[in-house]
């Protein structure tokens, strides 16, 4: 009896121990997590208090960190090494888990942490060659002493912080997911850069365009997806700007010049290597809307140039950006950095300011591969069988056996999805095609930031741009001398118009990239007569530009609206710029409804339809959270497109997208009798008015089913259910249900999960003044008030003055604490 009692009670105690000490699926290890001495209770606000002094072996000299009232660090060092070491340490102090998680995600190592749930994303990222690309980037960085020293000093700083941690100090996400930080490396910084490239350049329609060409023919596609958008769209470089270069001749298809290849031999070194977040299955278009512009002093009240930038990315908590000031002899830059990489990425120094939007050019192509047999060991190329190579990706899965994925590489690049395998959830990937992607080429983009942080003038800015390959960006620029400029900058394959719009032939060198557009020929403009430069992800140039860079740019609304506003403004102030960043007008709605509202007529409307029509008629086309009209228009627009285009895209064409809004609006305003409005599935002929009425009817019907009778549930803020989720999708760790103004095609471009990830306005002058706001805060600790301290002001369209110190000794009401860092004695 005693034995039985002892055994049973021991078993119960052991079960309790096992249950509380381990994670069960996604349920955290309760014993570890709720332990008051080392669990989540330790992740309170106590860590927010900056330390007075820290001894950090590795530092060469004294470093001072000044903390401002918003908990933003301003780092002052005596040399570059210490500056970036301290940046690594301080960033890790606030954002360790975020950088670690993002790097693991990019490397395809999520399953190590979360188990099988991470396997598909891991496999996909490895198939896409993110790790391979980061290895090549790491090699390129290591070859450049300046870049290597900067990135390594940063990594050493991060590791100094990791080394100082006791388990109780771990960010709370480690405790919930039950794992530990690992040493940070130069390779990790490369991974984050490549992940950014993935996020910004991987959207690709080659697969669906190829299917559509087969069904509809190239002429129809050229009409629906024109290379030159209708005139309502305004390019980045003002039309009529003379090109200050003599174009190089374009290689003709099949010319024998050596193709510009990802790598010459197909032999990458063998044996590389709901909480899960990551890119959406089909990459979301970054077009949801970054903006930047710079206005010349001739147009501002102060007579000084002003630069504004609001990059729009996936919104998460912790914020994707980390505010920081970095000062050492030869450099004093402030703005935002990317946790996991050194330097200020978007910001200003005492002489220049710079900001980015995504360029959106075509730097990713798919090549159809003909393999000899099922082993995929050889593929047909230029009349002979060529050997492919295999990179074995060993994916560690928590609590289970490793999964080994064989990724086949051709000389073009990796084959992401082999025929016969299950289709990846990213539907833009064609089966049996090799990926040729600019981001796979070795590059060293860190040097761009290194030089931008130090640039004194336009020449310094140009020097910085020279090392930027991918992801191509629109670099807006302004300086204290009064110069403004914008460069649409990246490394672009030299090719004929339309090359790469469809899946290419991988068996023939004729279809390959042949050389590059000379860097100085990239679209650019300096001090244009109109007194401003701007970009909003739209097509960079008009038809006069002699090179072909791509066809798939953002729709016209933001670019056109920004240019209209800037052209009409006088005596511009920084406040005006901030107001512009928060402009909610939908040019799409204004232009489309100017015509369609005439066509929607009350034929036995229900009470709700009558109300909805009145709402639309009374609407000033601003996407405000409290209005129902933006909701009605949004649903109407989507139904109008569906009824216009879905009869064209039947069967295999389901993945084809609708034409861009400028094409649709051009049809509405200038070609209302277009055949496209006829629904080919019915015997009678529909007109645009029929489609508009049917779309209005169905939109209201659906909204009524979704939201009930007219009321609060119809408002834009309620209906969109926009919020800012936690990076690891941990429930309760984000900010849900925010009543956001704006919309996908407003300057204040926002949508569920997307929006302005940083708003910045900089006025250049003897004293540079800057304002900024993050939809989050400096801290990555969900238990800190600084985790989401900016969200409410961001939502309301306010920005904070950004403290820009000249020295660590500078005092002021905004300086709240100082930390002194020293190396070991």
């Amino acid at each position: 009896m005693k034995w039985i009692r002892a055994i049973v009670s021991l078993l119960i105690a052991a079960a309790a121990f096992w249950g509380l000490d381990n994670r069960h699926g996604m349920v955290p290890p309760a014993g570890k997590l709720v332990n008051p001495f080392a669990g989540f209770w330790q992740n309170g606000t106590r860590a927010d208090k900056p330390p007075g002094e820290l001894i950090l072996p590795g530092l060469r000299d004294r470093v001072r960190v000044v903390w401002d009232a918003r908990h933003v660090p301003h780092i002052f060092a005596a040399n570059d090494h210490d500056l970036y070491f301290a940046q690594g340490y301080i960033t890790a102090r606030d954002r360790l888990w975020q950088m670690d998680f993002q790097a693991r995600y990019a490397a395809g190592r999520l399953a190590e942490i979360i188990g099988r749930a991470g396997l598909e994303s891991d496999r996909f990222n490895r198939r896409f060659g993110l790790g391979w690309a980061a290895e090549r980037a790491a090699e390129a960085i290591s070859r450049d002493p300046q870049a290597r020293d900067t990135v390594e000093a940063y990594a050493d700083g991060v590791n100094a912080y990791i080394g100082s941690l006791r388990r109780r100090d771990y960010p709370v996400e480690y405790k919930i997911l039950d794992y530990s930080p690992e040493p940070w490396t130069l390779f990790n910084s490369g991974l984050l850069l490549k992940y950014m490239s993935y996020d910004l350049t991987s959207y690709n329609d080659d697969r669906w365009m190829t299917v559509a060409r087969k069904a509809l023919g190239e002429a129809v596609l050229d009409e629906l997806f024109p290379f030159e958008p209708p005139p309502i769209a305004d390019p980045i470089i003002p039309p009529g700007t003379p090109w200050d270069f003599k174009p190089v001749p374009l290689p003709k298809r099949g010319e024998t010049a050596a193709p510009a290849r990802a790598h010459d031999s197909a032999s990458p070194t063998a044996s590389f290597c709901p909480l899960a977040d990551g890119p959406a299955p089909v990459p979301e278009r970054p077009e949801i809307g970054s903006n930047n512009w710079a206005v010349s002093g001739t147009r501002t009240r102060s007579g000084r140039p002003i630069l504004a930038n609001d990059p729009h990315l996936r919104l998460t908590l912790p914020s994707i950006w980390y505010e920081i000031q970095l000062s050492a002899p030869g450099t004093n830059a402030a703005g935002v950095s990317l946790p996991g990489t050194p330097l200020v990425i978007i910001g200003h120094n005492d002489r220049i300011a710079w900001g980015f939007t995504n360029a959106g050019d075509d730097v990713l192509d798919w090549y159809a591969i003909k393999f000899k047999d099922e082993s995929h060991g050889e593929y047909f190329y230029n009349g002979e069988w060529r050997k492919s190579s295999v990179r074995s990706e060993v994916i560690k899965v928590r609590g289970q056996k490793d999964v080994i994925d064989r990724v086949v590489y051709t000389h073009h690049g990796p084959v992401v999805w082999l025929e016969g395998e299950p289709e990846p959830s990213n539907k833009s990937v064609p089966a049996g095609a090799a990926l040729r992607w600019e981001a796979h080429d070795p590059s060293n983009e860190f040097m761009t930031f290194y030089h931008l942080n130090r640039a004194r003038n336009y020449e310094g800015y140009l020097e910085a741009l020279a090392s930027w390959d991918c992801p191509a960006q629109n670099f807006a620029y302004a300086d204290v001398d009064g110069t403004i400029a914008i460069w649409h900058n990246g490394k672009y394959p030299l090719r004929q118009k339309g090359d790469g719009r469809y899946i290419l032939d991988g068996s023939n060198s004729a279809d390959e990239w042949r050389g590059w557009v000379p860097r100085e020929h990239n679209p650019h403009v300096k001090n244009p007569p109109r007194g401003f430069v701007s970009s909003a992800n739209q097509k960079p140039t008009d038809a006069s530009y002699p090179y072909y860079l791509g066809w798939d740019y953002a729709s016209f609304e933001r670019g056109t609206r920004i240019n209209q506003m800037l052209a009409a403004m006088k005596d511009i102030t920084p406040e005006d710029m901030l107001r512009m960043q928060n402009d909610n007008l939908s040019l799409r709605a204004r232009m489309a409804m100017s015509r369609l509202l005439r066509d929607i007529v009350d034929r036995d409307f229900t009470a709700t339809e009558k109300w909805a029509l009145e709402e639309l008629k009374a609407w000033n086309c601003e996407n405000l959270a409290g209005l129902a009209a933006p909701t009605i228009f949004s649903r109407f627009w989507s139904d109008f497109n569906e009824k216009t285009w879905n009869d064209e895209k039947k069967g295999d064409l389901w993945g084809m997208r609708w034409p861009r809004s400028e094409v649709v609006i051009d049809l509405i305003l200038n070609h209302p009798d277009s055949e496209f409005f006829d629904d080919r599935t019915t015997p009678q002929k529909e007109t645009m008015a029929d489609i508009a009425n049917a779309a209005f009817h169905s939109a209201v019907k659906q909204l009524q089913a979704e939201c009930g009778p007219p009321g609060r549930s119809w408002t834009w803020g309620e209906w969109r259910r926009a919020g800012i989720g936690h990076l690891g999708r941990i429930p309760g760790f984000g900010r849900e249900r925010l009543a956001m103004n704006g919309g996908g095609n407003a300057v204040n471009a926002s949508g569920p999960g997307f929006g302005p990830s940083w708003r910045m306005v900089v006025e250049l002058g003897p004293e540079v003044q800057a304002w900024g706001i993050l939809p989050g805060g400096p801290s990555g600790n969900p238990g800190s008030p600084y985790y989401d301290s900016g969200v409410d002001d961001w939502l309301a369209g306010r920005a904070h003055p950004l403290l820009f110190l000249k020295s660590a000794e500078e005092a002021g009401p905004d300086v709240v604490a100082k930390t002194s860092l020293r190396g070991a004695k």
Partner: protein
Amino acid sequence: MIAVLVCLLAMLVFQLLTPFWWWIMIVPFAYGVAAAHTGGGAFFNGFLSAGLLWLGSSLCFFLTGSGIITARVVKMFGLGGSWLMIPATALVAAIAAAVSGYAGYAVRALVKRK
């Protein structure tokens, strides 16, 4: 009651010095093996000592800066108000320690005089 206090202090020291949560099981187990007179005594010794330790310490952290993180963890678990996390934490410790203390006594009973 003294035993409860001694166990509580022992756990406190071990928990302050190391990151391990399971001292709240080890200490009551050791008490059960070494000194408990009855199964019920061992059970309640663990229940009270660990429960009180985690109740007091979580309350202390809650009041000194861990309010925000508690609210978020409560949301993650889908519980009600933040303060509920304090008794919930105490209960986890109390039950784990109680079963462990009882198991310790059950082992002791095997070697005690027949």
